[in-house]
C-alpha cells in the first residue's frame, strides 16, 4: 500500500475524561491507554499531516478548516468544567488547510480557513490532539462538521481532502472525533457507576464495532442513516462521521480493523478504533445511494412545481 495517501484512520471519542480524569475508573484508563498506543503508532508512521474531523465543532457557513499555525488557549468544557481546564497549543498546517479549501470549492462546496487568535477549539479536538500528538510532532488541521450537511455534501468534502492530499504528495492520519451512541446520563453519576446508557445502545455499538473490526468502513457509511435513527440523540440532521471517514479513506471495505478500547463515557459509547488500508478484507462494496463527485447545493425541488 505504498501509494496510499492515508496511513491509517482513527475513530476516537470526544468527552474529556481520558485527558482530564483517566484514573477515575478503569474504563477511562483503558481509553487513555488506547489513545497512548495510537500516539506511538502515529509517531512511527510515515504521516506528515493529521486531519481531524470533529463532531463537536459545528459550522453553519460551509466547512471550516483550522489554519492558525500556533493555536493556543485554555478551554473549559460546557458540561464537565469541574474536571479542570484544558490548555492547548497546536501547530496547524496553514498551507494544507488552504489547499483543502481550494479543493472543496473546486467541488462546489462552501469552505474557508479559520485563523484567529483565541478561536475556541472544541473539546473533542483538544482531547484528541492533546493525547495523539502532544508534542506537535506532526502538523494538523481540524475540519468542522456542518450542522446542515447531509450525505452528499459530506462525501464530497472527504473527496476534496483526498484531492488536497494527492496534489500535495502528503500522507495523512485521519482522526474522526465522535461517540458511537451519544446519549449521556442526564443526572450526575459517580465515575465508578459509568456504563453505556442502555442495553440497546450497547448492542448497536457492538454491532458497529464488528463492522469496524472487519474493516467494513464503506458498509458503515451506508448504514449511517440507520445508526443515526437508532443510537444518536437527534442534535443534528445526520450521523456524518462514517460518511466523512469512508470518503476520506477511499470508499471501500479493505481495511485492517482494530478496536483498541470500547468504554462508557458518562453513558455514551466511547471507542478507540484504528483502520489501516490493506489489500484484502471484506471485498466488494454495494452502493445503494449515488456516489457524488461534485456538490450542487440545494436542488430547489420546491421551485419546480408539480412534475
Amino acid at each position, binding site marked *: 500500500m505504498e501509494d496510499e495517501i492515508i496511513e491509517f484512520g482513527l475513530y476516537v471519542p470526544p468527552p474529556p475524561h481520558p485527558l482530564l480524569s483517566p484514573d477515575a475508573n478503569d474504563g477511562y484508563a483503558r481509553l487513555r491507554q488506547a489513545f497512548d498506543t495510537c500516539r506511538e503508532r502515529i509517531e512511527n508512521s510515515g504521516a506528515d499531516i493529521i486531519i481531524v474531523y470533529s463532531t463537536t465543532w459545528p459550522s*453553519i*457557513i460551509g466547512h471550516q478548516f483550522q489554519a492558525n499555525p500556533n493555536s493556543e488557549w485554555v478551554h473549559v468544557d*460546557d*458540561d464537565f468544567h469541574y474536571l479542570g481546564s484544558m490548555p492547548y497549543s497546536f501547530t496547524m498546517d496553514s498551507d494544507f488547510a488552504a489547499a483543502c479549501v481550494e479543493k472543496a470549492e473546486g467541488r462546489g462546496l462552501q469552505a474557508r480557513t479559520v485563523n484567529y487568535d483565541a478561536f475556541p477549539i472544541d473539546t473533542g479536538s483538544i482531547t484528541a490532539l492533546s493525547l495523539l500528538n502532544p508534542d506537535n510532532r506532526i502538523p494538523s488541521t481540524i475540519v468542522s462538521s456542518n450542522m446542515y450537511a447531509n450525505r452528499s455534501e459530506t462525501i464530497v468534502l472527504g473527496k476534496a481532502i483526498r484531492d488536497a492530499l494527492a496534489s500535495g504528495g502528503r500522507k495523512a492520519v485521519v482522526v474522526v472525533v465522535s461517540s458511537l451512541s451519544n446519549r449521556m446520563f442526564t443526572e450526575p453519576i459517580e465515575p465508578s457507576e459509568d456504563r453505556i446508557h442502555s442495553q440497546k445502545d450497547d448492542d448497536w455499538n457492538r454491532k458497529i464495532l464488528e463492522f469496524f473490526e472487519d474493516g467494513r468502513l464503506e458498509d458503515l457509511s451506508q448504514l449511517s442513516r440507520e445508526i443515526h435513527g437508532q443510537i444518536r440523540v437527534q442534535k443534528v440532521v445526520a450521523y456524518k462521521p462514517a460518511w466523512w471517514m469512508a470518503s476520506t479513506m477511499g470508499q471501500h471495505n479493505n481495511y485492517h480493523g482494530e478496536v483498541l478500547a470500547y468504554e462508557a463515557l458518562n453513558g455514551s459509547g466511547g471507542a478507540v478504533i484504528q483502520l489501516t488500508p490493506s489489500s484484502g478484507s471484506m471485498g466488494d462494496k454495494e452502493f445503494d445511494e449515488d456516489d457524488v463527485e461534485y456538490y450542487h447545493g440545494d436542488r430547489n425541488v420546491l421551485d419546480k412545481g408539480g412534475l
Partner: protein
Amino acid sequence: MAKGEIVLGALAPHPPHVVYAENPEQNEPVSEGGWETLRWGYHRLARKLETIDYDVMVVFTPHWQTYVGTHFLGLPRFSSKSVDPVFPNIFRYTYDLSVDVDLSEAMCEAASEAGLITRMMRNPDFRVDYGTITSCHMLNPRWDKPIITISSNRNTHYYSPEVMIEQALALGGACRKAIENSGKRVVLVSSHSLSHRHFVTESPLPEDMSREHIYNHSQYVWDMAIIDLFRKGKMKEAIEIMPEFTEQTIAETEGGGLVWMMGAMGMPEYPAEIYGYQSVIGTGNCIAAWVPQPEKREIVL
C-alpha cells in the same frame, strides 16, 4: 427586606452580527453597519432599561449547552475574549463582566429544591458564551450591572419539546422564588432567535443588506404567528404551540429560554412591547419585552 421582583423580561436575540454592526471597541472586526431594524430596536430598549431601576440581568442562553442538568455561573468575575466558533470573522469580543454570585447560587438552590438537576460553574477559565455577551452588550453596552448566565439543558434533544417546556417552566418558577427572596430587582433575558434556519453561505461583505432575507416564507409566517400572540398577551397559547413552532421552524426556542422566562413571569396576559423583527443570515429575530408594571408599559411598534 423588600420582596424582590422581575421588572422586565426581554426576548433578546443574539446573532453576533448586531454587535459586529455596532463596531464597539471590544470587538475586533470592523463593519459598515447593517441590520439596523434590529439594532435600532435594541437601542430603544436599552434606553428604556436606563429608566428602570434594576440590580442584575439574568440571561438564559442556548449557547451554553449542558446535558447533565442546568448550570449557573458561579464566580464574581469573568474576563476573556469570546470568539464565535461559527462566525469568527465577525465576532472576536473582549469582555470583562461581573456576576451576582449570591443570586446565582440562590437560583441554583431553588431549582434543585424544585427537583431539577443543577450545578454551579466555578472554573475561572470558563469562557462566557457569545449569546450572553451579544444580548447583554446590546441591552446594556456599559456593562455596569452584574449578570447571571443560566445554561440551556438540552431536553428537547434528549427527550421532547414537551419535556423541555415542563422543566423550563419549573426552572422559571424556581428562579422567580429566588429573586423574590433576594429582595433584588431583576431583568430577565431570553437570548435567542425565533425561526432558526440559516443560510449556509455568506456574502463577501456580511453586512450587505441586499442579500439579507428570511430563509423561507414558512419561517416568516410562523414567526409572525408567534409575534401576534406576543402582541395580544396570549403567552399561554404561545407556549402551548411552542413544540409545533419549534419543530416547523427549527426555532431556537428549543433551548427553553422563552418558556423559562414566561414561567418566571407567571405567563403574562398583557401585551408585549415589540421593538423590531429582522432576519439575520436567514433566521427570524424579534426583540420584545414584557413589563409587569402597567404604568411602565408602552406601545413601541
